């Protein structure tokens, strides 16, 4: 018989969540619930030959596996988030058994309740800002006083200056964007900028922001994003997301 563990996707407060029967999660395992002291954990039973520490170390380097597992985890979180305020749990959090999940719900009960009340009625939006520095700046017609060599150097210096200037302007525009959006959002978080190789774009990423927005202010938020387009930075919007970026229980006092 294969050893199994309990894979944890998300925690909600105890509310009837009909329509989740037949929901499948990672490795096509059936999702079930563990209620405990007013909280509900969404879990599935996973084989440890796939989800033990050692196998995971290898699987996490397998893009197909990672992509499939992240997708399945996300799917469960989304389904749950559609029905109740949710605290998503980080990818591949596996317990020895249900009893350990109950221990968690008991030990961190108040923290979960706090987090869940802080995300209730709110959703996360992602806003990324890019700047294209490969595009040539405004044409600089430097007078050629000292021959072609000097002219070249001057042009080159001017080019560097305008590139630097373009970068500075774009960076401050991205800061302004982040401040403006943060003022509408209940909370904001800046993820690390994605490497161009990961974002799949040649432009440099200046902002990889996450914003927790009251549903009633979604329209205002989205309109503001649209209004701030075409000001020297390219903006990409993603979401709405379950509040992944705002349920990090390990971080305290992170406004």
């Amino acid at each position, binding site marked *: 018989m294969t050893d199994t563990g309990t894979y944890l996707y998300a925690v909600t407060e105890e509310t009837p969540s009909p329509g989740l029967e037949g929901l499948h999660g990672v490795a096509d395992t059936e999702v079930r619930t563990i209620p405990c002291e007013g909280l509900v954990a969404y879990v599935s039973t996973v084989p440890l030959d796939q989800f033990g520490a050692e196998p995971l170390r290898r699987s996490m380097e397998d893009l197909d596996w990672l992509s499939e597992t992240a997708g399945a*985890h996300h799917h469960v979180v989304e389904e749950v988030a559609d029905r109740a305020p949710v605290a998503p749990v980080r990818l591949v*959090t596996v317990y020895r058994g249900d009893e350990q999940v109950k221990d968690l719900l008991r030990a961190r009960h108040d923290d979960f309740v706090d987090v869940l009340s802080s995300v209730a009625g709110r959703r996360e939006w992602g806003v990324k800002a890019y700047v294209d520095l490969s595009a040539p700046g405004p044409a600089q017609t430097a007078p050629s006083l000292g021959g072609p060599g000097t002219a070249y150097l001057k042009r080159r210096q001017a080019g560097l200056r305008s590139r630097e200037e373009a970068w500075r302007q774009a960076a401050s525009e991205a800061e302004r964007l982040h401040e403006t959006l943060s003022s509408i959002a209940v909370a904001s978080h800046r*993820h690390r900028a994605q490497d161009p190789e*990961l*974002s799949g774009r040649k432009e440099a990423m200046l902002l990889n922001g996450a914003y927790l927005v009251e549903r009633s202010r979604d329209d205002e938020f989205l309109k503001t994003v649209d209004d701030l387009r075409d000001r020297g930075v390219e903006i990409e919007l*993603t979401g709405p997301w379950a509040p992944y*970026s705002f349920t*990090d229980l390990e971080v305290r006092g992170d406004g």
Partner: protein
Amino acid sequence: MTVDGPRGAALAEQGRLPAERVALVDLLDRLLAGGVVVSGDLVLSIADIDLVRISLRVLIMSVRENLGEA
């Protein structure tokens, strides 16, 4: 591509991707750097794996491979 209801229509109009086509890299930003983190004895020693580093390396490698094929 399925567009459901006014919200879907509004999203499509603004040129946004439907949820099914979430970029893996955006998802991993959230699934590996966000969410509830449980550390300690309860969890099966996943915490000592630097998930972010491993996964990002995989992604970069795969992107390079794709570029090589193109």
